[in-house]
């Protein structure tokens, strides 16, 4: 039995690096410090859906083949394609991503990562207005106003609050955990009374259904208190919202208007309307005051902002808001990246090609124009003639028409699991779990690179994503060289 300390959790963008694993007989038997997501991954990754051997589709059925055969077949498909796409990359190491970019350049393909369906819009807006940001460590020690906009870290990044923001004990800012416990107690008391009412112990007139505008409460006086404050803005009351000092429920798809209104209020402009996105303007004025009066504020935003009406313009306005606020105080902004290494994919693509996602190498040099060179749009227009999917499951997440085109053309899948995409695949190559069975590097959501550890050996015969890609790349080069020789001879 060995205990491995300081393991990085390869699940969400928080990339907690304080996990302790107990290993027995090449298996993880105990997880310490991790959240529920982390535990279930480290203890359950060996599940029944694991692919054990490489597969190739023959007569409509996936048949086991040797690794060499699968790699040769994959290389052949890619080397002969006119407009191939390479998609995924968010749940693998930077080392594998780097070879991916090399492969894309070699075959004249389009390489794209899952940012295109989550935080791609954030990147677009960063390109329009820049981004004032910092590391999570700085937020932990200094931030006294924390705003989560369109995201629910309690469910999607469970340790984010506890490790980096409201509930962590920073050097200059204290944890708000005690306040939260009090709130929970108060809420429990309220629930007791409510259930008593329901059981008829206490009589109360029937409540009318609430209207949207009544859902937004006035800001509590605690918004002006000293110390850490937590504000949540969302279209629905999430778990994180329950903990917040102030929760603002914005009408769906109205975030843009609300942010723009706050921007105008910060500039002391008068608005001609009483409400924006269902929120009374006087409440927004108080929020604007709290923002201006904090010492160090931060907005974390999620897909509630990037994937609703306005998309990247929502983020652009958020960043513009931060820029305005920085004239009065210190404010930063950070996207809540989902997959553990989607930030890494953007970073690696950028230092290799100059662009963060949707990079088209078909003309021999990198070209980038989201909407034109992004994987989903290419599939919807039916332009590609081969697809490689690695460490992602577009078969389950893309619109039907895109999946149909992907299935119609040759499809290569590299993944540890038999997911929806792998089931559609023509060549399926199983890989080792990065961060458990193979090592590598990943970038946390604040662009801090962290090492991923290998804690157990992969099942026999399985290679890491990096090695599989390197072998495909070598094979592609061999096929191209052979073709060249043949052409010269002819």
């Amino acid at each position, binding site marked *: 039995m060995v205990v491995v300390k300081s393991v990085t959790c390869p699940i969400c963008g928080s990339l907690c690096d304080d996990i302790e694993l107990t290993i027995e007989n090449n298996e993880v038997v105990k997880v310490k410090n991790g959240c529920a997501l982390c535990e279930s991954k480290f203890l359950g990754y060996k599940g029944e859906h694991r692919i054990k051997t490489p597969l190739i589709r023959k007569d409509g059925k996936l048949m086991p083949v040797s690794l060499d055969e699968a790699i040769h077949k994959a290389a052949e498909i890619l080397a002969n394609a*006119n*407009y191939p796409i390479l998609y995924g990359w968010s749940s693998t190491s930077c080392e594998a991503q780097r070879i991916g970019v090399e492969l894309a350049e070699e*075959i004249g393909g389009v390489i794209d990562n899952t940012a295109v369906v989550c935080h791609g819009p954030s990147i677009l807006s960063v390109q329009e207005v820049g981004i004032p940001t910092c590391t999570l460590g700085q937020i932990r020690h200094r931030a006294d106003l924390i705003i989560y906009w369109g995201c629910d870290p309690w469910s999607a990044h469970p340790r984010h609050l506890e490790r980096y923001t409201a509930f962590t004990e920073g050097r200059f800012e204290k944890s708000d955990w005690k306040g939260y416990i009090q709130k929970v107690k108060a809420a429990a008391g309220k629930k007791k009374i409510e259930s008593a009412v329901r059981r008829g112990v206490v009589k109360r007139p029937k409540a009318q259904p609430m209207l949207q505008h009544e859902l937004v409460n006035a800001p509590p006086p605690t918004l002006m208190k000293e110390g850490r404050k937590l504000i949540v803005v969302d279209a629905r009351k999430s778990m994180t919202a329950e903990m917040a000092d102030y929760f603002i429920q914005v009408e769906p798809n109205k975030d843009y208007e609300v942010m*723009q209104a706050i921007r105008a209020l910060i500039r002391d402009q008068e*608005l001609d309307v009483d409400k924006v996105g269902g929120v009374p303007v006087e409440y927004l004025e108080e929020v604007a005051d709290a923002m201006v009066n904090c010492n160090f504020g931060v907005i974390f935003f999620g897909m509630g902002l990037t994937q609703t009406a306005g998309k990247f*313009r929502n983020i652009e306005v958020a960043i513009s808001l931060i820029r305005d606020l920085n004239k009065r105080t210190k404010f930063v902004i950070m996207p809540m990246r989902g997959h553990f290494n989607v930030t890494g994919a953007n970073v690696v693509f950028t230092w290799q090609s100059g662009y963060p996602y949707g990079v088209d190498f*078909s003309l021999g040099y990198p070209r980038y124009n989201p909407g034109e060179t992004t994987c989903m749009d290419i599939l919807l227009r039916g332009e590609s003639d081969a697809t490689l999917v690695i460490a992602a499951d577009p078969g389950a997440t893309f619109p039907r028409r895109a999946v149909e085109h992907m299935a119609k053309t040759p499809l290569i899948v590299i993944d540890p699991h038999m997911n929806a995409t792998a089931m559609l695949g023509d060549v399926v190559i199983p890989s080792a779990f990065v961060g458990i069975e193979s090592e590598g590097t990943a970038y946390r959501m604040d662009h801090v690179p962290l090492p991923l550890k290998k804690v157990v050996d992969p099942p026999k015969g399985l290679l890491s994503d990096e090695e599989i890609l390197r072998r495909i790349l070598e094979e592609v080069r061999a096929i191209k060289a052979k073709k060249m020789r043949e052409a010269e001879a002819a």
Partner: protein
Amino acid sequence: MIVLSPLKKFQFPVIAECISPDIFKGKSLAEIAKLEVWEGNKQRTLGDLFKIEEDKAETPDIVINGDASEVRFVGKAMKSGEIVINGVIGMHLGEKMAGGKITVNGDAGGWAGAEMKGGLIEIHGNAGDYLASPYRGSSAGMRGGTIIVDGNVGSDSGVYMRGGVIKIRGSAKQFLGFRMVDGTIYVQKECGTRVGACMTGGKIVVGGFLEEVMPTFTIDSIKPKVKIDDAESANGPFYVFLGDLAEEGRGKLFVSKPANPHLSSYEKFL
């Protein structure tokens, strides 16, 4: 006049920056057929992909007949001459165009007239998203010239516009004239929300229904009519809004009064 007809239905993107009167000028048919284009990741010649014929008529200089929906960058940076497209044309039509005329008897893809400086583009069908808008990270919007679209246009059109006129006879989607600095945009029918967001100057005229004016616009007056360009003016009456206040902008947004009775609540501020 050179007539181009696609030899097949293209599946892969065809990058054909060479289809421009300035480049064709003074070249024989054989020379034109040898011009470089890309189909997917393969380099080809124009003659590989198009049937190329010469016609006696002087104008237009170039005619494209048939489905060219995958053919991109036609008329890139053209300075003079005329192109007529009888069918659908792909993205980036007339990018950085400085003069001359392009007529599309069909629909046009996204980014038509991107970063345009002068000349005239007439689209008799619909236009895609990002009409006359710059690329990511650039603030070089349309600077001059005229674009007329008979049908509808997509979202984010006229973004960062700095001059020129866009006339849309149909409807437009959201973020029309986003961060506009100068110039004129006229939508005759319905317009998506967030029109003129972050604009600091210029003029947007909405002749049809507009669900909501950005909260950061303030009402200024009611005007009976507004001038679009030397040849055209639109009849109202129009509510005139100023904004975007979040940018301390002085852009003008004209919204038809008869088509938008729900905006009458603004009248109390007049």
